[in-house]
Structures are given as C-alpha cells and as structure tokens.
C-alpha cells in the first residue's frame, strides 16, 4: 500500500506539488490524470525516492521512502517497476541487455534463464526480432514497449507507469492497456498510472485522480468521473480549450 501524506515540492520558486494526499491500496490501479507540466512525473518520482519531498511523507507498506537511504532504499525500490516517460533505456545496451539488467543485477539466474524470461516479456509487449538492436535503432513506440518489458521483468509488486501509451498508435496503445490489465490479473499488481490518454484511463482504472495546481482535486471511480459535473475534470476529460483550466 502506498500512502502519500501532505506532499509538498518546489523547484526554486516554482511550486509543483502543494499538499498531495493520496492512498493507493494493494492490488489497485490508480490513474492520475492532469495537464502537461502539472507535476505528474514529479509525483511518481517521489514514490520511488528519486526526488525528496520538501514536506510530507510517502509510506510504502509502512516505510517512509524519504527516511531510508543507501542499501535500504535500494531494497525498497526492488518492489517497484517503473516505466519512465522517456523510456530511459540504456543506450549503450541492446534490447535484451536492457530488459535483462534487473535480473542480472538482482538474481542468480543463469544466462539462459535470463534470456528466456527476457524473450517472454518482450513477446508480452509485442516485440520480437529486435533482441540485439540498440535503443537508438528503434522507433519511439518500440522503445516505450522495451521500457515496459524492462520494468516488469522482475515481476515487481508495484508498477509505476509514466504515460505508457503516449506516442503509441491507438492499437498499440490498447495492447499496452490490455497488458496492464493482464498483469494486474495474473500478479495482483498494484499500479499507479500517470496519463492524459482518457481512453486508456477509463479502461484500466479502478480509480481516477486528477492533479491540478499542485493538489489532487478529484478522486473517484471511472464511472463517476465520466458523469461528473465538476467543471475542471469535465473540461479535461472532454478535452476542450475553454473552461476553468487556463491554457495560456
């Protein structure tokens, strides 16, 4: 279970998170929506301890992420698989090496066993025949899927997805949606998904939360969200430029 309590974060004078409260229960898929630059990625990075809060705390199964350091923090992070918005693949490594890295680092599996698991995960995300290519040789969508395969290769308890479907064609986006659902069904995964792809959000979410002006202003089921009268949420999910969300 992930509990975020009164999380504040500023960069210089720019206040990004201004008192976030959010609880993600075991086995639940929470989708966080919000405009570009509202701090969705920043929020995810706090959960895994890549950024330190100015104020507030993040509890993962009762452990405060910002209070642990060194080995303990690395141990805690092994519970997570994170898909970065940019993919963040290691460009000096091939696809197979990228995906296999968590296994090579953290398990004593033999090389063939690693390879087998890697191939299986790559097949899961719909990739084959790219084993020995470097990330630079792949298309954006392929990179995203490799990143996904890498995040789930060690079958972590919690998956953090930063815009997993952005930049994919609608069909491939749906493949990823199905994958996220399937992963959850098979492994009982907890997931936090950041997205602004509403089709994806409605499909995979148990709960939809909206981040706006540094706060979670909405937290409800997909059904409630779809029927909401809240002007801010409504504007976002219908995607209109006129409304309470000031674009410029």
């Amino acid at each position, binding site marked *: 279970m992930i509990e975020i309590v009164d999380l504040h974060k500023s960069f210089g004078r720019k206040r990004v998170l201004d008192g976030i409260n959010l609880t993600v229960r075991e086995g639940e898929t929470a989708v966080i929506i919000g405009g570009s630059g509202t701090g969705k990625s920043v929020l995810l*990075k706090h959960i*895994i*301890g*890549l950024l330190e809060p100015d104020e507030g705390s993040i509890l993962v199964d009762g452990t405060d992420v910002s209070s642990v350091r060194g080995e303990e923090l*690395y*141990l805690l*992070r*092994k519970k*997570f698989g*994170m898909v*970065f918005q*940019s993919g*963040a*693949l*290691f*460009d*000096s490594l091939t696809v197979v090496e990228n995906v296999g*890295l*968590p296994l090579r*680092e*953290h398990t004593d599996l033999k090389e063939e066993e690693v390879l087998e698991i890697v191939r299986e995960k790559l097949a899961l995300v719909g990739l084959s025949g790219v084993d020995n290519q470097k990330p630079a040789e792949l298309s954006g969508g392929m990179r995203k899927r490799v990143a996904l395969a890498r995040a789930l290769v060690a079958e972590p308890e919690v998956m953090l997805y930063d815009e997993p479907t952005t930049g994919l064609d609608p069909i491939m986006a749906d493949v990823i949606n199905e994958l996220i659902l399937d992963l959850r069904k098979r492994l009982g995964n907890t997931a936090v998904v950041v997205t602004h792809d509403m089709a994806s959000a409605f499909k995979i979410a148990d709960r939809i939360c909206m981040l706006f002006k540094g706060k979670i202003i909405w937290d409800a089921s997909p059904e409630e969200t779809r029927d909401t009268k809240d002007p801010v949420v409504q504007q976002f999910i219908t995607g209109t430029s006129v409304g309470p969300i000031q674009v410029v």
Partner: protein
Amino acid sequence: MRWQVPRTIELEYVGGKVVRFFSHTGAVFILLGQTVVALAEIRKRVGLWFDQMLFVGVRSLPLIVITSVFTGGVSAWQAAYQFKGYIPLRYLGTAVGKAIVIELAPVLTALVVAGRVGAAIAAEIGTMKVTEQVDALEAMGISPVSYLVFPRVAASVVMLPVLTVFADFIAIMGAMAVAVFFVGLPGEIFLNGVKLFFHVSDLMSGLVKAAVFGLIISLVGCYHGLSAEGGAEGVGQSTTRAVVWASVLILVSDYVVATLLFSI
C-alpha cells in the same frame, strides 16, 4: 562617469566562487568515498571494469605513442641545445631520461587522457543523467556509483600507470632517435647516459603519480557527468568543466605529490 563594479558585488562574486569550489570539492570526496565502498561489489563489476580498461588503456595507445615520440624527441633536442658548450653530451640520456620518467611521461599522458577519456566519461554519464538513464538505474535499485563510477575509476587508476610505462619507453626511444640522427650521439652512449643515476624509485614515483592522475581524471569526469543538468547544453558544459578541472588538478597534484615524494 565611468561605471564601476560595486565592491560588495565583486566580493560576493568571488565569495560565491570560493564557496562553490569547496562544495564541489566536498562532493567529489563523498563520491570517492562511495566509490571505495563500491569496491565490495568488485566481482560483479569485472566485466564493466574490463570494458573500461579497454577504452581507457588500449584505445588510448595510438595517441600516447604519437605524443610520447614527439615529447621525447623535443626534450632531447632542447637538452642538447642547453648542454652545448657546458655539459658533455654523454649526459644527455641522463637528463632526458629522468625528465621523461619523473615528469614528462606521467603528466603529458595524463593530460592527453584527460582530454580523451575524461571528456568521454563526462559526456556519456552526463547524457545518461539528462535522459533519465541514471534515474532508471536508481529506480531499479542499482547504484550508479557501483555500476557507472566504479568501473571507470578502477580502470583509470590501473591503466594510467600502464600507459605511462609505454609513454616512458616510447619517449626515451624518441629521444634516442633525435640524439642519434640529429645530435650525432651514438645510441649506446645515449642509453648509457639513461642508465647512469637511474633509480627505480624515479620510475615508481612517476607511476604513483600516474595512478593519482587516473583517479583525478575519472572521478572528476564522473562527478561532472552526474551533476549535468538541462539538455545537450548542460552536457557540453559538464564535459568542458571535467576536462578543465582534471587538467588543472593534474598539474596541481603533480606539484603536491612531487614535494611529498622527493626531498631536496
């Protein structure tokens, strides 16, 4: 009226620089400490270490060969010019050999490697930093110090002395070639001169310095890479800083180590 920099701003500017210098120095020492701790995982990093040794050592050889030949050659030429009329030329090898083994080979090798390897380390790690690859390592529970910094530092500390041995040898050969072909001194006499007053401790001191330079180049490169921010521009700045600081620190530490190793 001429515009003048107000005194306080000037002081603040200098003060800021000084504070920043010390906070960087502190951070580099912390990184050094973490790298030493990462030594515990050395068995896991042998592969990466080996790759880096190839890059730092073997691939730097052509560059070292060229710079050493000419360094040796010019030092023989200059020494012969300075000896003319005062000192017998049979001491040419003595003077040149000592200069090469103690100073020229270690320092010039280090400066050349700082340009090649230090820049490459800062640029590669810097790019990884700004493209979130360093974050990705962290997120996987892999320490960037263990995975990125340690192999580079270990490789540089080992390979700089090795490169310096090559540089010593090639520079002395270059010096001899100049002595034989341009100064007219028989090779035998030149080599006898080299052997005269040759101390193994001179050679060793050169190699100790080379190891220190290797540490400086790699650590400064990694540090600036890891502190890169922004995008391509930030990586460029980090790379420049890494090379400049490594070069400056090589020359400063050369003096410091010399005063520690040699008493006059």
